[in-house]
């Protein structure tokens, strides 16, 4: 097997991991909300919110003699526009750095490969179909639909693909006790199509998040204080096997569940956030490198 083929095989097997890094996170939108998932809260009509995160995924647990070590740093940038009070439009344009290190079976030497570039552009529309506001909270439900376009750098395949993929799903948000508690849930199914003889398996991604405001413990009588939240999330992905030249790749697809503690500081203008996704279930098909963690830091800003 040539070196290029070895890397390619490694990358294909890692597709389920990189999906987490490159495309799930960006659809998060605004407000005090989960760090690794979506939220159904609104964006003002005509207003913009920009969100950026740095996500470092490390995967080193390789069941094969290749002893693969993978590091991916993804920077998903999201621009959200409030087209109407109910319709929010998202444009997601990630930038990705990738490093893979493995042992060459013919020489026994460690070799590595680095790539970086622009990931595929994803466009999403989210429409709020149910909103019930109270003086002390809100409850919202919003279906969403999106399309991934093959605009990324080819060197980053299969994080980028030549296919046009669709996604359908929904997000919901409930807050109560004047922002003390927030629960968010979402479920998205992604239909991945074939291009250049490669087809990534369809996948189902989900997230359940609970945010608890620890500061201020009691709201002041006047004004808008900054909020500090502790965030607990459970998120994961079920992925079907990929196909190459119509043939199923056995070392692909599977099921991953992460538990993700995090912390979030919300002000009027900014949100700063950090989280670590720790895998608790990794039921991966065939021989795939298992994830050690995904570390996330990011911010959101209300644009004028």
């Amino acid at each position: 097997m040539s070196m290029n083929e070895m890397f390619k095989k490694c990358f294909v097997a890692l597709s389920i991991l990189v999906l987490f890094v490159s495309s799930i996170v960006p659809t998060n939108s605004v407000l005090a909300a989960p760090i690794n998932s979506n939220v159904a809260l609104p964006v003002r009509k005509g207003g913009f919110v920009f969100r950026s995160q740095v996500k470092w995924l490390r995967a080193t647990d390789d069941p094969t003699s290749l002893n693969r070590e993978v590091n991916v740093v993804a920077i998903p940038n999201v621009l959200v526009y409030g087209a109407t009070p109910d319709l929010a439009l998202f444009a997601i344009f990630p930038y990705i750095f990738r490093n893979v290190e493995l042992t060459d079976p013919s020489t026994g030497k460690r070799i590595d490969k680095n790539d970086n570039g622009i990931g595929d552009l994803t466009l999403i529309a989210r429409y709020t179909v149910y909103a019930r506001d109270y003086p002390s909270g809100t409850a919202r439900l919003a279906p969403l639909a999106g399309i991934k376009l093959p605009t990324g750098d080819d060197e980053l395949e299969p994080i980028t693909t030549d296919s046009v993929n669709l996604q359908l799903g929904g997000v919901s948000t409930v807050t109560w006790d004047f922002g003390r508690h927030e629960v968010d849930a979402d479920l998205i199914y992604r239909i991945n199509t074939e291009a250049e003889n490669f087809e990534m398996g369809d996948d189902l991604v989900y997230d359940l998040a609970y945010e608890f405001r620890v500061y201020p413990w009691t709201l002041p009588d006047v004004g808008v204080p900054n909020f500090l939240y502790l965030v607990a999330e459970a998120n994961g992905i079920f992925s079907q096997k990929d196909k190459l030249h119509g043939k199923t790749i056995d070392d692909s697809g599977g099921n991953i569940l992460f538990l993700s503690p995090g912390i979030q500081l919300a002000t009027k203008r900014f949100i700063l956030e950090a989280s670590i996704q720790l895998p608790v279930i990794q039921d991966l098909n065939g021989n795939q490198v298992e994830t050690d963690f995904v570390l996330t830091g990011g911010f959101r800003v209300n644009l004028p």
Partner: protein
Amino acid sequence: MLKKLISVLGFFITTLIFFQPSFAEINNVEMQVDGMTCPFCVYGIEKKLEALGEVKDASSNLKTGIVDIKLEGNGPLDIERLNEAIRESGFTPGKIKIKATGEVTKYKLEGKENPALKVTGSDQVFLLTSAPNHDKEEFLSEKKLNEVEKATEGGKKEITITGYIHSHPEGVPPALSVESFEVK
């Protein structure tokens, strides 16, 4: 020549001191916004309100869910514009409480004369009603309204009224329900 100049200056200074232009006397506007429970969402609400020409400043209170609105100039207070701004920010407008100063007049509506507050320094008129008891969802007695009429009878008197407002169909002034008042 110098005497003439001093006289002219004196006239202008006296005019400025004693004949100040009258500004609209809607002193406080407090708007309830339902669903406003985090700092990041407050930004959009305040921006939307401040984009209205008649709003000079909007500042929120997360504990009460109330946005305190300072008005600009003499423009009338348009309740529907405020409500629309809140809806466009993705939240639900609630009750609006104001404190307005003016004089009590009569406003003819469907052949009947109704007590009304003509706001000082603007064309704004509010039809005066008795205050609704929001806790019990029923109207209080006419007592408060009668007190206003009694306190202002016998000539022009400046009065400051605090209460909730709500809009009426086009052509009919908005209503101001009297919670409390003070005659100067």
